[in-house]
């Protein structure tokens, strides 16, 4: 049971990647990328968890309390911002691609090949 969170992270990576590979719609593909990203959140926060630890916020608890790791939380915050930026950029590209190709199917956008 003590590895269950890690298994969930691995599972999310797998289904997300499967979604990316099998996607017929770029917007679907972008959402699948956010599922892959969820896997990184789960793994990062899981490795920093301490059983019965408190949140590392000492507003209401004494500074000697056992807390979970604040460092992975800071890393995850950065990760969340990266998610928003990646989605924004990809959507801008998809909107333009739809104007050129009249489709958002990744398999139908192949201009450079014979």
């Amino acid at each position, binding site marked *: 049971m003590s590895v269950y969170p890690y298994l969930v992270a691995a599972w999310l990576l797998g289904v997300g990647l499967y979604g990316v590979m099998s996607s017929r719609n770029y917007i679907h593909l972008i959402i699948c990328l956010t599922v892959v990203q969820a896997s990184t959140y789960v793994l990062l926060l899981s490795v920093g968890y301490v059983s019965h630890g408190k949140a590392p916020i000492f507003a209401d608890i004494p500074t000697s309390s056992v807390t979970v790791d604040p460092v992975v939380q800071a890393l995850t915050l950065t990760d969340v911002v990266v998610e928003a930026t990646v989605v924004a950029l990809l959507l801008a590209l998809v*909107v333009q691609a739809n104007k050129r190709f009249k489709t958002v199917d990744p398999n139908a956008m192949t201009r450079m090949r014979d």
Partner: protein
Amino acid sequence: MNVLLALLLTLVGAAGTITVTIREPVRQTIAAGILSLLLALLFFALQAPDVALSEIVVGSIAIPLMLLLAIAKVRDQQTAVEGEAEDVGRGDER
């Protein structure tokens, strides 16, 4: 490892799977929003309230909003194309 964490982890895994399997963009956006909310609950349970708040505001508000706007634009465009195609088709019939 307590029951709550195990339950939330299972729900997140299931929500992720469902999000991938839904192929219709608007419904998938809603599923992604739900996944984000479940993730946020999980982060609260993992004692990470800062991350949970970020995940709620980004995953359930900002990203779905962007997605819905993009989906609307793509639909507009594709309806316009189909409209033109129909016009052309009718022209041929005549």
